[in-house]
Structure formats: C-alpha cells, structure tokens
C-alpha cells in the first residue's frame, strides 16, 4: 500500500505540471495585468510602467516566465516554486502570495470543516431514514428537500438566508445572526463564552448555505447504497437468523453502506473548496475563494498559480485518500 501511495503521488507530478502550464498560458492570454495602471489619471510616468514590467517579469517571454516561476533561476529572489517563493503579485508590490494563502486557508478550512461535518451527519441520517422507509411520505419529503437544495443557485439561496437571518433577529429583538464577515475580529478579547456565541453568530448562515448543496447529493448517495445493502443476501441472512432489526441495521447494513459515502466525502472535500467561492463572496469571508476571485480579476498569474498548486494537490490527495479508504474499509479490494 505504501508503494502504491508513493507511485500515485509521483504520478501526480506530471498532472500538476501540465495543469500549471495550461493555466499559465490561459491567464497570460486573458489580458494585460498593467491595464489598470495605464488608465490612471493623471497617467503614470513611463518609467513607472517599465518598473512594473520588470518587477512582474513581463519583459520576458511567456516560456521564460514559466521556467522562472518553477525554478527562480535568474529572478529577483521573489520567485521560484522550488525555492519556496510564489512570485510577485499584480495586486500590489507588497502582496505576499504565500502568506496570504496560508492565512486564508485557515478561514476556508473553518467554513468547509463545519459544513462538511454537518453535511456528512445529516446525509447519513436522512439517507438511512429514506432507504428504510423507501417510497414512504418521509422518503418523498426528504427526497424533495434534497432535490430542492440541489436546484438552488448558491448565491440566490445565500441572499435569502441573509434576509431570513435578519428577519429572525428582528423577531427576537437581538442580533443572533450576523450576515457579513467571519467574526475573527469580533471574537477578540472575548471570554470563551463570548467566543462561542460569536462563532455561532457568524458561522451559522454561511455554514448552512455551504452545507446544504453538499448534503443533498451525499444523502442521495447514502440512500442508494443503503438500499443496495438492505437487499443484499447477507442482510437477509442476518434477518433470517432472527437477529433484532436494530442490530441488523447498525452492525451489518449501516457499516457496509457507509463505505461508498466515505470515499465520496473524501473526493467531495476537493469539490467543496470550489463551492466556497460563492459562499465566501456573499458572506464576505476572506478565504481562498475570495483570494481566487481577486487574483482572476487582476490577472494575477502567480497568485493563481499558487492557488492552483494548492487546490490541485488537494484534489489529488483527496482522491488518493478516497481510494485508500476504500481499500481499508472494503477487504475485497487489493492494491497491486
């Protein structure tokens, strides 16, 4: 299994390289990062524009820049992935891409972590209930709610949730929910109690929004695999042996039915990072999603490349974990 893991990780390197080349070229053709500077009023001196071109290495060819981005050889010491430098940013001369990513990763993980845990729990619960009561009213209701969650545009739903949160606050006459920001600053100097209520106020709405879309597809997944297991021979056998239904479900059915969901969850971890872009925007969290948007808006190629390396690695690792988990949980699978 170790050999397998190492081989998979090595196999990921060319994928990352290819993805980074593709991205680099795409960003490069998408526009002039200095366009806004040129439109300043009054216009900046030509020597200033030249200075920026040198700083961003725009005076070099695309191929040279890519090589520079990887190795940092011949740069100003602020670039070169292999040396641990992410390159200069178009957003400002002092914008540190690495530090920014690190800081924002924490913000995003907080949001994603909470949403995933909730989504997983709810998905298992509703999936199992739906499966056990297949074609009942409960099943139909849960199915409908799930599909509804899958059908709503995130930002639309988020806007409605914000209004609902404010409406609730007005109803109870105190500010239970906050609608913008991640609450880090508001938690400063508070005691433990204050921090808990603060976290609840700032995290509830965005977590619900992010959780809901993921939860729906996972719940469907859990329902299907549970149904499959319930119809399987060994569960029938367990029942035939006269085991109590509770034991059959918990010991035999649920355990097996959780296997596929676990792997889907691991893969979903990567997908959910994409999903945070919209949620972070609407709730004004400064996480990786906002980082990404700002980088796209300002043609910030090195920042985008750094983001890509992070998200790409996450996708690859998450997929690997999914496969390994599958192997651990399901003894029928062997890795060569």
């Amino acid at each position: 299994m170790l050999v397998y893991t190492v081989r998979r990780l090595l196999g990921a390197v060319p994928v990352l390289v290819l993805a980074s080349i593709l991205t680099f070229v795409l960003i490069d053709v998408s526009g002039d990062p200095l366009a806004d500077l040129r439109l300043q009023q009054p216009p900046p001196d030509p020597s200033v524009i030249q200075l920026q071109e040198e700083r961003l290495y725009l005076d070099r060819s695309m191929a040279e820049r890519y090589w520079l981005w990887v190795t940092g050889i011949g740069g100003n010491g602020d670039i070169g992935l292999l040396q641990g430098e992410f390159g200069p940013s178009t957003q400002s001369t002092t914008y540190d891409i690495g530090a920014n990513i690190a800081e924002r990763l924490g913000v995003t993980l907080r949001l994603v972590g909470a949403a995933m845990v909730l989504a997983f729990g709810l998905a298992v619960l509703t999936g199992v209930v739906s499966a056990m009561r297949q074609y009942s009213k409960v099943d139909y209701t849960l199915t409908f709610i799930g599909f509804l969650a899958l059908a709503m545009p995130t930002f639309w739903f988020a806007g409605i949730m914000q209004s609902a949160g404010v409406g609730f606050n007005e109803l109870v006459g105190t500010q239970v929910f906050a609608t913008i920001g991640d609450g880090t600053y508001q938690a400063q100097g508070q005691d433990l109690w204050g921090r808990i209520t603060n976290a609840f106020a700032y995290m509830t709405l965005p977590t619900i929004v992010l959780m809901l879309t993921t939860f729906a597809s996972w719940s469907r997944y859990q329902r299907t695999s549970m149904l499959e297991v319930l119809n399987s021979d060994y569960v029938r056998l367990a029942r035939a042996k006269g085991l109590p239904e509770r034991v059959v479900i918990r010991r035999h059915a649920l355990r097996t039915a959780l296997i596929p969901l676990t792997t889907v969850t691991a893969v979903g971890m990567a997908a959910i990072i994409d999903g945070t872009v919209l949620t972070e925007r609407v709730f004004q969290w400064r996480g990786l999603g906002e980082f990404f948007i700002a980088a796209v808006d300002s043609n910030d190629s090195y920042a985008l490349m750094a983001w890509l390396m992070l998200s790409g690695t996450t996708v690859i690792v998450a997929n690997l974990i999914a496969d390994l988990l599958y192997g651990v949980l399901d003894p029928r699978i062997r890795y060569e």
Partner: protein
Amino acid sequence: MHRSRKTLALAAAGTSAMMALTACAGGADPAEEVRQITWVINNVPSQWASTSGAGGSVYTVQMLSGVVPNTGTYLPNGEYEFNMDVLAEEPVLINGDLDEGPFQYSFTLHEDAVWNDGTPMTAEDLRVTVMMTASPSEGYCTTCDPRGSATEDMIDTMEVDGKTLTVTLKEGMADPEWTSLFDFASAGAGFYPSHLAEENGWDVEDPDQLGEFYTWLHDTRPEWSGGPFQIVDGDLTNQVVKEPNPEWWGAETQVDRIIHPFNTEEGTFVTAFANGEIDGANPAQYSEDVILGLQDLPGATVTVAEGSTWEHIDLNTENEWLADVELRRAIFTAIDRADIAERLYGTGYPDYELKNNHIFNSDSEYYTDYIGETAQGTGDTEAAIEILEEAGYELDGDTLTLDGEQVGPLRLRTTDTDIRSTSVQLVQSHLAAIGIEANIEMSDDLGGDLTEADYDIFQFGWSGSPYFAGSAHQFWHSESGSNFGSISNEDIDAAAEAANSAPTLDEAAEYSNEAVELVVQEAYVLPILADPNYFFASDRVAGIEDNLFSSFRATYNIGEWALAE
C-alpha cells in the same frame, strides 16, 4: 430506528440550547460605552500606503483617512479648503512669472504639528514625500512606482528650512496646480513621516535605501499617524480599526473607535445595515435597488448626487469609416443623450444633468457649453441625415452607403455593467435610425481593449477631478497613451500642451476649453453625463456627509465624526 430518533432529539436539544446561549449573550454587550462607528470601505485596500501605482487606490486612501496628514481638500460644496491644522499659513507662490525667473512656491507647516510619536512634522517630511512620489527617472529613488508624478517631476530643487519647504521648478516649467502637491489628491494622499526612515536605518539620500523605506511604508501597518486617528488593529483583507491619536493637536475627536470593514459585495449592504452590523458606506457603484432598499429602512439617511466619473462615447478614428469627420458628426448628432440619461437615472436620480463640457462641470467658474452649441447628442435624426447627404453618403432604404458600399457594420463596445449595456443598446437603436449597423460587444478588459484600440465605438468613463490642467493632454494629445482613438490635430496638441504648463489656473482653463471646443468640432468624444453616486448613513451617527469632490468620499472629515445626541 430508536437510534435515529434519539439522535434527532439530541440534535434538537443542542440547537435550542445554542439559541438560548446567544439570546443571553446578546443582552449584555460589554462594549456598550465605547462610542464606535462602523464604516464600510467598498473594496480591499491592497497596501498600507497609497503612492504605489501597483495597488494604490481610493480604497487605500479611504482607509488612511484621519491618519495621513494633508494640506487641503475640496469640500462637498466644491470649495477648496486648506487644512489649517497642518499648515501655518496658506501656501505661498513666490514667483509665478516665468519671465522673472523659475516658478517657485513654499509650504509652511503648523508649529504644533507632530507625528503620534511626538516627533514634530518638518519640511523634511514634505521633501522626502516628493522624492518618493517623483518618477524613478528623476533619480531620487530607484524602486518607487508612484501612480501619478506629473507635479513632482517638474520640481528642480527643494530647500528645507525647519517647517518651511521652498520648491523651485525646472527652467521654463510652470504648474498651475502647485497647491495640490501635498493635498488629498496627491498620489500619497498627503505626506509621510520621514524620521521613520532614519529610525529604521535607511538613508533617504541613497536612492536604493529610499526605495526600501518606500516599500516598508507600503508593507507595514502604520503605527504612525499625523491626523486625528491612528490605526490600532487590522489587516489588508478584513478590516482596520482606528482610535484617537493622543498627540493630535487639533479639535478633539468625538468617537472612541472607528472600524472600517472591507466589503466587496453591494448585495450585502441592505441586510447588514438592517442588522445593525454597519453604520454606513460610500459605495463606488450606483445601484438603484440598494438605494431603494435602504430608503425603505427606518433610521437610514440616503443621498444620491453627481459623482466624479463621467460617461462618454469615443470613436476610433483609425476605422476606415470613422476617419471621416462628417460621419463622426452625424453619428454624434444621431445619439440621443436625453433618452439615455432619462432611462438610466430618470427614476433613481431625476436631478441628473447632461454633460456639455468634457473638462468642466456646469458649476465650475470655467464652464462653457460647447456641446449645446452643436446638434451633437440631440438625437436629431433628420439633421444627421442632412450632414451625411451633404458629405456624399446615401441612405439606401435602411442602410447607409458611400459610393455604393455599406457603411459599417461598426463594433460598439463597453464594459458589462447594467448602466453601460443599457446605454449602448440605446445607441445601437439611434444609429440604426441613420442606417448604420452597430454590433454590441462587451469588453472584459477595459484597459487592454482601449490601449489596443480594439473597437470602433466605445463607451467608458473617465474620472473627473477638480484638477484639470493635465486632462486635455492625457485624453487628446496625439502623443498621449490614453488617446485611444488616435485623434491627431495640431491645434488640439498645442492647446493641451499650453494648458498643462500654464502658470495660472485661469490660463490653463482657457487652453483646456480651447481643446474641448476643437474636440467637439472633430466629433471625437461625446460626453453623456456624470454617473451619480450614493451614500448611506445610520441616524446613530452625526457629522458624516458624502464628498464627491474627494477620493476620501465621506471619510474626508473623519475627525469631525460623532454619534448623534
């Protein structure tokens, strides 16, 4: 089954406990006595000083309000006011007549003026600020990249005498806007503490070391302040927190804390305001629904007024058809500006005013109506057709032709906003009335598409400013990088150059108007109107008003902000 029911019950119990918790905590607010205002800044500032061209923006400037000292500002009513907290006297023009000798002027700082570490402000602070705001080719600083350096680059020598800085311009140069050197509109939005360079071990006379100081200023959250407030907490992504500067020598501040959250999503304003999370904002974009939504809320003051960005339609003279001035005149005549303006702002801001002079607003003393004299922008289709027929064009059914060849189709471009797309759709229909087919194409890269002149007709906005001397040169001079449609006219060039280097504002205005008149004759740029901006504030606060003459907007007088009685 029992299992899942139990879990459900548990979950429900947990939720209600949480609700109870928050309900309790909401009642006891420990920060009740702190007089605090939360004022939104509409984007992230990206750096800690506003001089650099790679990130200096109005958002950085607004974040630095009350921290960076400056020598003057335009007031909301359009009058200029020197900052007499900072200045000992109004700046002095020593010599404005180039025949007498070089152009010379001086600034003298107030004797009580100090930085918040107790160090007095001196003329050295002013001098070093100029050195960092001049372009690198001036030789003061190797890596400084100021976003605008026109005024600074004219300077030949600076002499420091205690609190007085005397500036001498290069031979033959005059600067009608010399008083702006350290005011709100300068690249640094004011001046910076030079003694911090020495404290950190940099020699400002060394161009490399000055560059390091410059980078440090942009990179480090300022603990320094020369205004009523100082920044005590915050970062460049979420918010900054300001508290009063204990060394402030001016009138005492009325609030204990100001929080500036950075908010990029206008869709959140109404809910966040209703929820009491923010006290107000001066957003960068006009949004009728947000305005209406806020007006419906109790306790909100909302104002809408003419902003500084003015929309205009540019023609690309490099296009084979548009090279003909008669066709350009006909096109501008066919465009109905009143129709456009009424549709855009008729309900939300009915006080809009069409713009009839590219450089001066109608309330300026230098204003002359040049557009109104012509038929341009009237939508007079018959007059337009008359111009065309006289110039040899023929309207063949629905198609305009010249020597049997169809004119156009032309590429009509703009950026993808509701306002601009509406406008170009109307322009499209106006042009169709004179037989010209225009195809709308949106632009995702305004700067790039303009610079490459990748258009036939383009609607975009310039940001107007009370400072105008360099405008004609930037917009229309044949050598200017911002003359995107490549108008080339010797008379315009001459007028623009003269305006840029006139010794007085009156003369500069005269030449600017001359350039405007010529541009109107050339039918090169048709101004439509200035986009309105809005502002909203809670009734909790007092002393806050929008200032559309300043990039500081409502924060221009942050030292006077207070809570309502």
